[in-house]
């Protein structure tokens, strides 16, 4: 028996269909170039109601260009029984083109006690035969009892362990143990520096690698970096050390990597400086914005064995 606030997925799909028909009829395609409805996956984003909605919308909209998808944003709130949904679209005109590309957006607002209902609404809305990715940005949902039902909706789950209230290593490890393909943006942030280190350390067998991090406590990135190097180079001694002089910068993040006495890598604004031999080189590493990190993670829908190996090393 539907409640007063029930949402019928069929109605949402009808609304979407009508929406596209209206968009298709707007303007003369000969003049405007028409529009292209694009969808390569379903992205289900769980966010807390308090999160800056404009910033979130901009982040998600920018993802559409590289990963056009049916976007379902679920905003979770405390308090009274609430469940509502509406549909809209995100469109953009690629540079030099005449035709707009559009993706569809379904926004669901739900109180945390309706989370079980959310699962039954979102499941039929996912695009058929395409990957479903869950982006967990809500601290509320991590604590919610219906989490298991929600996670079952996704082929991949993306978290950011460096966010406040985000799942920790133990919980992420639990997702892996339950068989979920999982990504952590704290790990994704390391790709440029890992790629550089992989190149610098090729054909080397260093005795000792020291990772210095800003401040007094190693953050998730520093710990992932240590775990990756240690699991990749089991004969090397890879250690973490606080770097008080860089304490003013992002607390807990890696700032220097020393490889024996041969290689010194300093992570600096927008890049890295490294000494390997007589010349100081610079590598460009623009700070990864959240959309760039998400773009990278959305491009990987299989188990990431390198990440999983590092995580297992931390949680062991």
């Amino acid at each position: 028996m539907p409640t007063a606030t029930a949402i019928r997925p069929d109605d949402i799909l009808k609304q979407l269909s009508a929406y596209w028909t209206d968009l298709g009829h707007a303007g003369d395609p000969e003049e405007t170039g028409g529009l292209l409805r694009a969808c390569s996956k379903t992205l289900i984003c769980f966010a807390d109601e308090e999160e800056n909605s404009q910033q979130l919308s901009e982040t998600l909209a920018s993802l559409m260009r590289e990963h056009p998808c049916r976007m379902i944003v679920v905003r979770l709130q405390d308090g009274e029984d609430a469940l509502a949904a509406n549909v809209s679209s995100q469109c953009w005109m690629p540079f030099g083109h005449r035709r707009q590309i559009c993706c569809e957006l379904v926004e669901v607002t739900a109180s945390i006690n309706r989370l079980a209902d959310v699962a039954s609404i979102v499941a039929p809305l996912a695009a058929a035969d395409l990957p479903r990715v869950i982006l967990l940005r809500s601290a509320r949902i991590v604590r919610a009892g219906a989490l298991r039902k929600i996670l079952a909706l996704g082929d991949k789950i993306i978290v950011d362990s460096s966010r406040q209230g985000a799942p920790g290593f133990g919980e992420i490890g639990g997702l892996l143990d339950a068989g979920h393909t999982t990504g952590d943006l704290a790990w994704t942030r390391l790709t440029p520096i890992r790629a550089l280190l992989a190149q610098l350390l090729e054909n080397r067998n260093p005795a000792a690698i020291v990772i210095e991090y800003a401040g007094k406590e190693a953050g998730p990135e520093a710990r992932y970096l240590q775990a990756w190097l240690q699991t990749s180079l089991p004969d090397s001694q890879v250690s973490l050390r606080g770097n008080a002089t860089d304490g003013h910068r992002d607390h807990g993040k890696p700032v220097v990597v020393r490889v024996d006495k041969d290689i010194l890598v300093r992570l600096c604004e927008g890049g890295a400086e490294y000494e390997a031999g007589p010349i100081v080189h610079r590598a460009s590493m623009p700070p990864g914005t959240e959309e760039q990190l998400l773009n990278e993670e959305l491009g990987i829908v299989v188990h990431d064995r390198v990440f999983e190996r590092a995580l297992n090393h931390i949680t062991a």
Partner: protein
Amino acid sequence: MSVNSPLQDPLRFHRKTPPCAVVIFGANGDLTKRKLMPALYRLAYEGRLAPGFAVIGISRTPMSDDDFRARMHDSVSRFLEDSPFDEDLWRSFAQGLFYLTGDVGDAALYKKIGESLGGVDEEHATAGNVLFYLSTQPSQYGEIAEGLGAAGLAKGAGWRRIIVEKPFGHDLPSARDLNTRIQAHFAEEQIYRIDHYLGKETVQNIMAFRFGNGIFEPLWNRRYIDHVQITAAESIGVEGRGAYYQEAGALRDMIQNHLLQVMATIAMEPSATFSSDAVRDERAKLLRSVRILKPEEVADNAVAGQYGPGRVAGGAVVGFRQEPGVNPESTTDTYAAATFLVDNWRWAGVPFYIRTGKYLPKRVSEIAIHFKSAPLSVFRSSETPGESLPNLLILRIQPEEGISLKFVSKRPGAGMTLRPVSMDFNYGASFGERSPSAYETLLLDAIIGDATLYTRQDMVEASWSAVQPIMDYWAAQKFSFPNYAAGTWGPTASDAMLARRGHVWRTP
């Protein structure tokens, strides 16, 4: 980076290069400024170059290392596409740029190159690996290869490779002669003949489309395909390159190399693996299967054109013969169209029409696969105009890269009225990420040692063999040029060429 490195992460890391020095002959030329150096900088920006990397530029213009660095700084910051220019990174990159002045005919130059490579190797740890890039006048290619060979630079402590820009000769005998001269010093696996068309993402995507999907390949043959049209139209003229262009012409400049390679990619058999030699073997086999026209067949199967005055983009333009540096009686083809037949079981009887030209109405490169019509007209009626349209598969290379499938559909409402519709895949919409330029791809491949997208001697000779009868026939003709107005789709003889087989050119 080696695939066996314990630090590899193939899901996330891009391909990276081993240490090496790149020696560019013609370092003061346009190609170096506009394409090569921006591509190398971009590879550095993406962190794909090894720390041990250096460039030695060579040309006749006297210049110091610092002058060269300053010129390259200006070029890269001006011609870099889709990327920010990072001054700090440039300073690091520029530490590895060096310059030598010299004449490629002078043996002393090669001695200097050898000495410079030794110094660069010591200072920049390039591991003795050297990539020579010939970006000079084509007439100098043989001389440079011989100079390098005589100085012992074709061999060394690391690998040695040589990239040769097109054109590879100006006809079949000169292509053979050039190959002989280069191969006297470099083994075939050291020679990388560049055809930048093969480095284009969307040309590579043709292989992904054909061999990564199961549903199209069963239709990819004479039983279902009626004919294929390959178009590479340019909406501009010779843009101040008239003097060069009148020595080349559309057939030599586009069809002999780029478009026959595209045709080979469309028509080749699937290779057993995606290894360099396996793919190139299949391309070469296809090119060798192209029927060689007899002299008496050329007139019906090839059309030359030259643009006259006309209107383009709302403005008047002069004809080719009025372009600066062009002979007022030039018989150069600014338009060429040809019908090629492939003598193998898959394609017997299927015409491949190829056309290219300057000052055509729009800039477009595409391949149109025309499928045979349905065997029975079930919906025959005056109300079903769409029914007579055959299915079309369009592979668009530029602009709006993508794939479209045209088919007919019932119009909503009472009655069986059909209408042609299009199902579109837009490359940019599905992959919003930046595509590397063709030169980035090809330089990266050459440094890594992957020759898949480079042409091999047998491929070059096979494609010259396919166009040589046309060139010979045209050389003996007195054309009544100009025969098309700038801004139109070429000479009427081109339409007649297709009409002889009951076909018409598609209007892209």
